[in-house]
């Protein structure tokens, strides 16, 4: 049976259905419990799907509908390679120190500037990379000013999840949605960046309310910041020029990839190859070893697990349930998707969540418009708000709890090493209200833009 036939045929709840569903549910349960490393579960679950013949290996590796989304995989790997090559130049230290000096040593001004810088960097790099590059400097600055580092830690990680929402490459859910829905970089800029800018304005007011009055320092400590010379951060000016050239090329490539008919992964892979070549490194294995392979394999395993339940019809069954619930009202559906996504991503990893939701939305579209296919189906004007609601919910939902996004987990880990552990409750105290605020803004945005103004 070809996969087109499988998708069209009504599903039956046979042995394969229950086997695949059990593997899927067990894998997700173990991932949530964190008893075993999530990458191991993803690989093992994928192996089970193949060994038990739920999926043929050919389907897992080569069929877009059921298998690994190589566009996502190569986009992630290529961006990691580019950043790994850029890091040693010192450019990120330079940006962070420059930002702190721009804040003139005032702790609250620095807090705001760091939040904005983090949001902008997160829109261009992935969030985990951004917090790893910014948070260490913010703690150093807090130590220099002898103020509590916690506001800096929390505000940066929340800002990184907000900023990441704005672009195709900013956050893994967006990369996955873009690939599945065949949306390009400018679609994300056009549809998501405006609301993210609005959210950031509200966010800055919110952090002023929370920490504005608490952060005070002595005048003489400000001199420590002003005495720092950001130019000392640049360790390799030549490599920096090469990296900035390639980064500019890649970003230009992203802006025009839709027009030029390149997939984002093509643009990123070319950039990674070019920068490797320009770097004249004789030891590419160092750069390649620093790629976060556990994350990459987590994605690959999940794609196969989800492919299994797509093939047996579980996802189609779920999409029917949702349509039943919302009576086919797409505004209601997109609101359900946004709010459910936000709370789901706050408590479970948004990567497996979006991996499941993507085919679910495609299936939903197939129910609604059975005569359409391809881009006509995926880009149906009534379906578009659903993709944006999913992206906004899944990305912003990451702010809800300490485990909502990988960046949060990293920052909580850092706080522990500092001896100032951010507990689950403490994170939620800040994260949850701010998440709800950002999702309310998004709700108003989606309602106003797509259902009232219809632009």
């Amino acid at each position, binding site marked *: 049976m070809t996969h087109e036939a499988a998708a069209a045929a009504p599903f039956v709840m046979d042995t394969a259905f229950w086997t695949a569903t059990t593997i899927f549910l067990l894998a997700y349960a173990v991932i949530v419990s964190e008893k075993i490393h999530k990458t191991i579960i993803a690989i093992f679950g994928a192996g089970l799907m193949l060994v038990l013949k739920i999926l043929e290996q050919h389907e897992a590796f080569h069929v877009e509908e059921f298998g690994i989304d190589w566009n996502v995989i190569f986009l992630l790997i290529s961006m990691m390679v580019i950043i790994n090559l850029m890091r040693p130049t010192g450019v990120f230290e330079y940006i962070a120190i420059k930002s702190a000096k721009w804040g003139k040593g005032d702790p609250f001004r620095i807090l705001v500037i760091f939040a904005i810088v983090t949001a902008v960097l997160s829109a261009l790099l992935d969030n985990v990379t951004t917090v790893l590059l910014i948070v260490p400097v913010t703690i150093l600055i807090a130590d220099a000013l002898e103020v509590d580092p916690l506001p800096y830690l929390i505000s940066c990680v929340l800002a990184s999840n907000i900023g990441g929402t704005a672009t195709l490459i900013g956050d893994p859910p967006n990369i996955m949605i873009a690939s599945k829905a065949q949306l390009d970089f400018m679609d994300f800029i056009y549809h998501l960046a405006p609301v993210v800018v609005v959210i950031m304005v509200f966010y800055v007011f919110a952090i002023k309310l929370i920490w504005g009055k608490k952060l005070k320092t002595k005048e003489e400590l400000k001199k420590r910041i002003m005495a*720092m010379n950001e130019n000392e951060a640049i360790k390799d000016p030549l490599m920096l020029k090469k990296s900035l050239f390639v980064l500019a090329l890649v970003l230009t490539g992203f802006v025009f990839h839709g027009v030029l008919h390149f997939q984002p992964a093509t643009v990123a892979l070319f950039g990674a190859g070019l920068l490797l070549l320009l770097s004249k490194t004789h030891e590419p294995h160092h750069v390649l070893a620093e790629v976060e392979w556990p994350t990459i394999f987590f994605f690959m395993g999940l794609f196969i697990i989800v492919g299994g339940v797509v093939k047996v019809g579980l996802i189609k069954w779920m999409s029917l349930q949702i349509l039943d619930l919302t009576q086919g009202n797409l505004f209601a559906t997109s609101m359900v998707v946004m709010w459910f996504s936000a709370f789901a991503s706050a408590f479970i990893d948004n990567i497996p969540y979006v991996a499941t939701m993507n085919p679910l939305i495609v299936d939903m579209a197939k129910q609604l418009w059975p005569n359409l296919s391809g881009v006509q189906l995926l880009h149906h004007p009534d379906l578009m708000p659903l993709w944006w609601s999913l992206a906004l919910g899944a990305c912003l939902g990451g702010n809800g709890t300490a485990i909502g996004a990988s960046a949060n987990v990293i920052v909580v880990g850092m706080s522990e090493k500092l001896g100032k552990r951010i507990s689950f409750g403490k994170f939620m105290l800040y994260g949850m209200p701010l998440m709800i605020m950002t999702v309310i803004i998004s709700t108003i945005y989606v309602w106003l833009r797509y259902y009232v103004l219809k632009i």
Partner: protein
Amino acid sequence: MKAKDLMVPLQEYLKPGTTLKEAANILRTAKRGEEKVGVKGLPVLDETGKMVGFLSIGDILKAVFPSYMSLMNLGDFTWDGMVEDMAKKAGNKKVSEMMTQKVISVTEDASLMECVDHMLKSNVKRLPVLAKEGKVAGILYERDVFFEITKAMLDENTGGGK
């Protein structure tokens, strides 16, 4: 020549519950051999005499070095008095928090080449030497191995031994 022939018998040790402040003082005043004072590392033994870790000067440096500094190149952006401030905070940490837990050690009968092997591959300058029942009998210092090597180099007749 075996590890036990070259080691300095154990005189002082640290306990896991000791504070870094006290431990640093012990390191400064501990006797090394007969006349020299001050050691760069001591084994940490629990109440039964079992070795549970090793605390060296490097571990004390790590205690004042903030974890975030290892994530990026921030050395250029530090200030006067930073180490002293961190030292004040680190003084009350326990030895058990900062000690190296996986200690590379040798048995009394280990050959000298085995000791050199550990020193080079694990980059350690001091090797605890364990007696048969697992108790620490002494410490073998890189410097003493070096003297042994020079002795052999300078001995024209045999090229080794006494």
